[in-house]
């Protein structure tokens, strides 16, 4: 008979693991938040006016407007053309913002990643190379990290608000407002992907004396590129949503038309805009999903 001493030695089970702690923490914080915000379930029951609004709002879901709900001056463009025009501009601002963000994000992502200068054999044999790798690049790395954290800590709508206050309403402001936080996010994720990509070819290049830039461009970047492309495409989808919401601040995108229809209580028109936005986002999501499946095999 086997004695129990021969059983494999296991760590004693903890009462609550890290996951349990996380869940308990979240629950406790939620209860605290409930009291902090003075929430009552009763506030969830819409007031009488609210119910009326809700009825008319959800009735609109079944019949999105194909014509304006009120009298319009003759010669006004049909509503579908208006919606399409707003949708087109939504895509235009998202694309322009995203293209700027991509360029900025790649440059900042390069300086925010550490795999190409950190470690052994850095900077080759030359003295300047070692100096760069031991003092300059770490310093640049730290500054870039700080910069991209700040860029993405401020929401794109708040960037837009800041630009509105600083320059006045200008469509280029919308593009930059999208570009700045998105560049920060892309740079962060890109640098993480580069740092986490397999190092084999990078190390091989380093051992034959390549410069850090060569290690980056030919050793590390190609390994991370598929993931980077997939992520950039996902962010494009987010950019379209952001671009639509910027309309609430006066920029000519889908949110603008939506807010107008909502304020005029034209709920059928609201749903036309909502469906247009949904169609746009879903098309991009399915497309990016299909592309990602090819990229990240």
């Amino acid at each position, binding site marked *: 008979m086997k004695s129990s001493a021969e059983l494999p030695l296991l760590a004693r089970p903890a009462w609550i693991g890290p*996951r349990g702690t996380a869940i308990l923490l979240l629950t406790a914080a939620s209860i605290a938040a409930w009291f902090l915000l003075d929430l009552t379930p009763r506030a969830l029951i819409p007031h009488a006016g609210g119910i009326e609004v809700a009825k008319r709002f959800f009735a609109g879901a079944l019949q999105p407007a194909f014509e304006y709900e009120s009298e319009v001056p003759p010669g006004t463009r049909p509503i579908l053309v208006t919606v399409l025009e707003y949708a087109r501009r939504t895509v235009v601002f998202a694309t322009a913002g995203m293209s700027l963000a991509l360029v900025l994000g790649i440059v900042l992502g390069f300086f925010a990643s550490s795999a190409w200068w950190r470690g052994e054999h850095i900077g080759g044999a030359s003295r300047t190379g070692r100096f760069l790798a031991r003092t300059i690049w770490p310093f640049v790395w730290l500054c870039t990290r700080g910069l991209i954290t700040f860029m993405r*800590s401020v929401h794109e709508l708040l960037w837009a608000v800041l630009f509105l206050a600083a320059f006045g309403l200008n469509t*280029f402001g919308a593009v930059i407002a999208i570009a700045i936080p998105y560049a920060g996010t892309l740079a962060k994720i890109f640098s993480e992907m580069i740092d986490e990509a397999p190092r084999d070819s990078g190390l091989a290049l380093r051992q034959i004396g390549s410069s850090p830039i060569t290690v980056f461009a030919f050793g590390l970047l190609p390994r991370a590129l598929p993931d980077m492309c997939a992520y950039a495409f996902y962010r494009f989808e987010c950019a379209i949503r952001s671009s639509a919401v910027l309309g609430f601040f006066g920029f000519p995108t889908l949110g603008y038309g939506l807010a107008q229809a909502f304020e005029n209580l034209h709920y059928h028109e609201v749903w036309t805009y909502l469906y247009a936005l949904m169609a746009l986002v879903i098309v991009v999501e399915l497309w990016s999903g299909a592309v990602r499946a090819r990229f990240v095999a």
Partner: protein
Amino acid sequence: MKTGAVRHGFEDVRPLQAVPQLWKLRPRSRLVRFTLAALALLVVYAWCAGDIGFDEMFTARRAQNFERFVGTEIQPFELRAEPFSLMRHVEWAWDLGVARGFEGALATLAMSILAMTLAASAASLLLLFAARNVATRDPFQSLETAGARGLSWRLVTATTRAVLIFLRAIPEYIWAYVFLALFGPSAWPAILALALHNAGILGKLGAETVENLEPRSLSALRQLGATRAKIVVAGLFPLSLSRYLLYVFYRFETCVREATVLGMLGIVSLGYWIQESRSRQFYDQMVFFVLLGAVIVFAADLFSTFVRARLRRA
């Protein structure tokens, strides 16, 4: 050629030709090439279509606006006459924080925490109907992928997935805008908006996680005679919890970011004070609240990174 050499596709390729040969054999996808071309065209179109007022940005009037904004407007109103003193600025910021900012920041955090809990709970139920290996007639019967799923089960997953995609296709800001009209001003519209959008995202990510689970232990449970509910509670949740929590805390970070902004609709979070100072053109206060927002987003980011690192090690 020596006998016994390993035969492979490149045996008669001399080393110098190997690279071009490999280049020719690289994986190529028509969809990817089409996408890259289409996106490049789209970028060119976006910049050239004339919707972006690029020239209009750099006029003398705008330069003047900018100079006024940076030169005077963002400096604390009360301190503009005095010579610059860091201590007085800190004092000014602290007073503003105590008066409004810190409470708003706390409310922002509270809203995102509640929204996250709601979203995570709702999505953990929804994902059971969205995951194709669970929502089937005979879950975990074999170790291969689910076989025939039956029309009704396929309808269930399709509907759930449609609901999830609907939830996440609408931005939080628009959800909040709509709920505000229905429920009136309280924290609920913001919480519900954040919860719905994130439930759509977490449901999708969770369903993917469950579909990629190693089916062995689930199958074992099934063979022990466990019911569907038992399989879910005893096998599926514990197995996928780590990854799911990673996603939850990753979304928490984004949630705080969005919650800051939702206040601009008139819900008491930091955004409320941003909007309020903006409409009164107190840009000094507005910039302070924006920066305070950046600080709490940064704090949430650090917290979520810390928690995720701990969870990943576990």
